[in-house]
């Protein structure tokens, strides 16, 4: 394992100190318990947006703290959900009187920890709603299992709900909008290489020199199947078909297409892939109205990509376009 770190146990703390050093007038880092919060929090009268999850997915979530997106993010250890005390403290720090929305990715750990935090925070008198993202079509959807994972749509949802919160929409409205974004979004990912967590020092799975893993999660979880690597056009097809058929997306739909790198993917490859995605959607009559191309929800140094499609409506498009000013996403300001 070769990494630009001091020691496996120090990665998260060292990186948080780096974040604090980098953006002293934009964010504040709280160390005990750990959360990153907008420097001007709480914003009075605005719904507070809190997300969080394991570290190693940067810029998600800490890089999305700022005007127009999250009010606070709770970083766990690498690939490990944060703890309720972090979420409780972050929730209180961003509570501006209009309630707080928890944006939670659907993993057993994240859901349980955020649940405990919501219970604690409600007991403190802060109104809390939760939106759970579960957009990963690689996982079968079933009542009897943990259900689908939350992946790429989380980034999009944080941006869109951030716009709505900035527009002083109510907690109920922002939560409902978030649920609509989740319900209309689908994702799937694949890997060329595994990743290595600093704690384990071992690759998350083994792949032959000519194999790819299809349907991976963002924590180095193995995928649903593996196959010999094909051209980018084939990889785009492997990911897009299940996405499109699941919602389903159909001719005439206007979408946001998000081509995401897993952390170790060169940008030039993301554009090659985006080109293929565009061709496939064009064939189906689906129109790309907005796009996002880059590494925004990552798995450490994993090479690979994920594709997220969101069926847009006018409100989503408006809040997607609204100004945002965070280290990870910035426009309109």
């Amino acid at each position: 394992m070769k990494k630009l770190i001091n020691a496996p146990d120090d990665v998260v703390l060292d990186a948080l100190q780096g974040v604090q050093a980098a953006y002293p007038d934009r964010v504040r880092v709280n160390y005990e318990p750990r959360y990153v919060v907008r420097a001007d929090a709480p914003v009075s009268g605005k719904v507070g947006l809190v997300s969080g999850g394991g570290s190693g997915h940067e810029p998600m979530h800490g890089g999305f703290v700022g005007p127009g997106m999250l009010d606070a993010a709770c970083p766990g250890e690498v690939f490990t959900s944060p703890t309720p005390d972090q979420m409780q403290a972050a929730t209180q720090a961003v509570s501006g009187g209009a309630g707080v929305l928890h944006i939670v990715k659907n993993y057993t750990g994240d859901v349980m920890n955020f649940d405990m935090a919501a219970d604690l925070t409600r007991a403190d008198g802060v109104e809390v709603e939760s939106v759970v993202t579960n957009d990963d079509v690689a996982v079968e959807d079933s009542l009897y299992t943990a259900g689908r994972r939350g992946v790429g749509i989380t980034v999009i949802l944080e941006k869109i709900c951030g716009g709505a919160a900035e527009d002083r929409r109510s907690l109920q409205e922002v939560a409902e909008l978030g649920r609509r974004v989740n319900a209309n979004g689908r994702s799937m990912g694949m890997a060329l290489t595994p990743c290595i967590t600093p704690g384990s020092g071992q690759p998350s799975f083994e792949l032959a020199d000519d194999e790819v893993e299809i349907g991976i999660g963002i924590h180095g979880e193995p995928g649903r199947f593996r196959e010999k690597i094909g051209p980018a056009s084939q990889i785009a097809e492997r990911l897009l078909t299940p996405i499109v058929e699941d919602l389903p997306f159909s001719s005439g739909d206007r979408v946001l297409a998000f081509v995401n790198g897993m952390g170790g993917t060169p940008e030039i490859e993301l554009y090659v892939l985006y080109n293929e995605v565009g061709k496939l959607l064009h064939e189906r009559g689906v129109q790309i109205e907005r796009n996002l191309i880059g590494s925004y929800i990552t798995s450490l140094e994993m090479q690979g990509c994920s594709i997220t499609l969101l069926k847009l409506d006018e409100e989503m498009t408006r809040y997607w376009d609204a100004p945002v000013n965070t280290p990870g996403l910035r426009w309109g300001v």
Partner: protein
Amino acid sequence: MNQFAASMQEHREELVRLDTAIGDGDHGTNMDRGMRKALEQLGTQPQADVGGVLKTVAMALVSSVGGAAGPLYGTLFLQMGTALTGKAEVDLEEYAAAWRKGVQGVEARGKAEPGDKTMVDALLPAVEALEGAADLDSALQGAVSAAEQGMRDTIPLVARKGRASYLGDRSRDHQDPGATSSYYLFQTAAEALAG
């Protein structure tokens, strides 16, 4: 608790390896971090009250483990601690009842049923063994054996809860990491309490 902490440190790599196969590879690190934190917290407190000790451990786990194991083990110890509040000594009946409470807490929090390939598959049979036993020594031994059996029985299962469930059929033929740490918990409890 010292023994369980030592056990988590000792088996850290093994739990990481099990969790890498069907999860995200952090279960060993998480439990080790949590139990070290628990010992730290205990160090500063008087330990006369068994319930108090368990509740301190619970809070330490909840606020330092994270992931699925944090809330689940936290709930386990919290419920056990609540059942044993104020006790300096515990008899077999109270001991078994506390475990039952704890495991019910885990079931309520995680919604896992037996056969879902989770820690519940080690915890439940062990509690049943405690409840059915005639004396402390056979209870402790029976619980260890039952937990071990439950842990091994997770191998052929397809996971329906937790991170391993994302793998579908590919989760088969691997031992569940959480059931494994639960087995170690019974093992160290037996060693600590055995006459």
